[in-house]
């Protein structure tokens, strides 16, 4: 078996996050593998989006440490975030994508190729010159996905990316996520869709009331969840937790 440093991408060591006195995440102990798709599940308000924000560096742990493991000789680990509620800039669809990659300072031709590829991956070609804010909810979510893909990140953080997509678009995004994982892009996915989680996940982290109550290989998680909250969640029962 390989040493953890070569298989682990990031590790949380007793990470807590509090905002304005509320503990949103408590004592998180997790190791995120370098490969594959890791899915985060859990009821509303469990802290899934907060955990992704920590991974993206948008929030810092209030205590504990989040460590990234970079193989020697590789650069900074780049993340791209598809937010639960995407912010669409007041410009066209293609200009939104071009803006997202502008910090990468690519040569013009290369930037254009990336924009085109992202548009086609997310089936947005016919909308390339439409104002981004006029798109439907699902189209905006696809645009957010296209912006993230164009950055060609090491880690793709997807916060419920198919929550308002039709079945075809959902399937397209799932194929993109799988293709990314095949090309050694790490994908961390938040979803409430158990079917999607089954189709895509290598491993599942289950969050409940700010705690990581379970982290198992996907098959094991769906066959036999270890924790009561996960069993309740998958069975569609409301979990009553006292925090």
């Amino acid at each position, binding site marked *: 078996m390989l040493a953890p440093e070569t298989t682990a991408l990031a590790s949380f060591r007793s990470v807590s996050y509090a905002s304005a006195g509320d503990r949103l995440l408590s004592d998180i102990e997790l190791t995120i593998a370098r490969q594959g798709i890791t899915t985060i599940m859990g009821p509303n308000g469990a802290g899934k989006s907060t955990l992704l924000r920590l991974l993206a560096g948008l929030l810092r742990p209030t205590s504990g440490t989040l460590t990234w493991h970079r193989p020697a000789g590789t650069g900074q680990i780049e993340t791209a975030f598809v937010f639960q509620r995407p912010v*669409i*800039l007041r410009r066209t669809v293609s200009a939104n994508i071009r803006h997202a990659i502008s*910090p990468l300072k690519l040569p013009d031709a290369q930037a254009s190729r990336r924009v085109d590829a992202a548009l086609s991956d997310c089936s947005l070609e016919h909308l390339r010159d439409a104002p981004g804010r006029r798109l439907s909810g699902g189209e905006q979510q696809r645009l957010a996905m296209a912006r993230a893909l164009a950055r060609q990140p090491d880690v793709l953080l997807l916060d419920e990316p198919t929550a308002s997509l039709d079945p075809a678009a959902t399937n397209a995004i799932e194929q993109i996520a799988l293709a990314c994982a095949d090309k050694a892009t790490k994908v961390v996915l938040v979803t409430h869709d158990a079917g999607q989680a089954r189709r895509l996940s290598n491993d599942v982290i289950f969050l409940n009331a700010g705690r990581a109550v379970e982290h198992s290989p996907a098959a094991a998680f769906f066959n036999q969840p270890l924790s009561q909250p996960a069993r309740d969640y998958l069975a569609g029962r409301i979990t009553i937790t006292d925090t």
Partner: protein
Amino acid sequence: MSEATQALYLAVELVISMDAGLVEIVLLSLQVSLLAVAVACAIGLPLGALLGIARFRGRRLLISINNALMGLPPVVVGLAVYLMLSRSGPFGVFGLLYTPTAMIIAQTLLVLPIVAALSRQTIEDLNAEYDEYLRSLDMRLAGRLKTLLWDGRASLATAAIAGLGRAIAEVGAVIIVGGNIDHVTRVMTTAIALETSKGDLALALALGLVLVTIALALNAAVEILRAGAERKLHAGA
């Protein structure tokens, strides 16, 4: 025919025939005010944007001062610029008093607080909306400013137009530093103010008509911009 109706006929005639004297005054007015607004935007937009996104001590105070300066009476600005540019003033050596340049300087100072305050508000709101996304892109300050200024373009254009409205309609500042010299510094408002008292009612009225038309056009432009921005807002909800 009363004196007033006769003057009005003459005025309409002046406008329709594009009287050379009238056109000269209108063009100088537009030139002075447009340049003043351009300079005020070049300084005020980035300054307002910085004030909108930077967090530093004394920021609130600066914003209050900025807001207060919006209500500065034009005659006071004119007086201050006069003192700066007069022979004995610190910039007297440039001999700028009673030139169009002096009028541009005065109107720039008049418009600058408006542009800065309105752009500060626009950029601050937009920054709150975009902040997390821009941080996730690793945007640096320059990129962030550029993003916000471009995406705020509809509101910022409104700010510029509001500034132009104030500049083109004010008389207090330009009359003090310009002096209403025929063919040199005579603009619409100073001409109206002084020609009326000299009895050239026709010219004053003609200029008044042009000025009102410009003011209405500017208001219409603001309305169109606002309607456009609102349409986008609803589409983006």
